[in-house]
């Protein structure tokens, strides 16, 4: 059976593949940029370039995160939970073996995605506040790596759950 493309389906794809996927890619690039900001391995011009790369990648990841989470929370989620027999939530609730996807899994995806956005936003604010000390202080870099890694873990969970939900009960 063909599942034709709809406006809801396109926005869902943009949310997951474009914004969510882009967020994960930018997060990984930001993590690599912070990990590699080591004064012993960089020349003065390399250090300057590295600091700029950290700023750009963390800021871009934060922007992508906010776009992904706002389209997900206020665009896709209401369609998922819409009243009526055709909504994905209603369809899942009608199957006892799959009801937990509508009761627990989608909710956890939402909260974990917001936690991820919180972590990356905090990383962006901290990175901006201490941008001049970041290269010299390993402790600061490690804390930033911790925040970005937590954000990546959350984004990966939300992305995997989103991919499974899109297979199980696609938004139309």
């Amino acid at each position, binding site marked *: 059976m*063909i599942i*034709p493309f709809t406006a809801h389906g396109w926005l869902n794809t943009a949310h997951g593949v474009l914004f969510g996927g882009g967020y*994960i890619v930018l997060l990984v690039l930001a993590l690599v940029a912070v990990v590699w900001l080591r004064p012993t391995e960089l020349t003065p011009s390399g250090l300057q*370039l590295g600091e700029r*790369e950290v700023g750009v990648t963390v800021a871009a990841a934060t922007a992508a995160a906010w776009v992904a989470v706002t389209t997900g929370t206020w665009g896709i989620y209401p369609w998922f939970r819409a009243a009526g027999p055709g909504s994905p939530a209603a369809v899942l609730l009608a199957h006892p073996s*799959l009801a937990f996807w509508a009761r627990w899994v989608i909710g956890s995806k939402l909260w974990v995605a917001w936690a991820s956005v919180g972590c990356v936003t905090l990383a962006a604010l901290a990175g901006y506040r201490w941008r001049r000390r970041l290269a010299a202080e390993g402790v600061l870099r490690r804390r930033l790596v911790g925040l970005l890694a937590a954000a990546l873990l959350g984004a990966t969970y939300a992305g995997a759950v989103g*991919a499974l939900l899109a297979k199980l009960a696609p938004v139309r």
Partner: protein
Amino acid sequence: MVVDFTWRGWWTSLHGVVLGATFLLLLIVTFTALVRLQSTALTPEGVQVRLRWLKRGLLLMMAVGWAAIALGTFVIDGWFNKHTAASPYTILNASGWWAWQERVMEWKERISWVSVVLASVAVYLVFYYDRQLADDRRARSLVLSLYTVALSAGSIAGVMGVLLAKLVPLR
């Protein structure tokens, strides 16, 4: 309507969401690492450390890329093109969406191979040039050009895969 999980669906997810997406992610990360591998920006110690990590990333990328393409070509494509009533091939042809079968699916397979083969050539060149990459701008440009084509082809194949999986999911 619930599209229940089947083992074919799980294999398709492994091919696209796990292996394909990881291949693209590693392509992007190693691409940026290659761009940064310049002796003007790195100390000799930095070049050594980055090259070591770059090579590890490249080997992982190759393993994931070849696994994705082998699974896609020899397993999933076989299910997709089966001439049974429930196969995506039959459904697309019967519904007037034959172009998706004939053009999108066929092209997805071809450009995926282009992506993995070019990425493999680029990896070979990184191992061949080794430390010279940090100093030799021409060698770096050659590797980065191959990378750009591999990344573009891989991204197009990924988008085609997502659209096909949405249009006619494999069960």
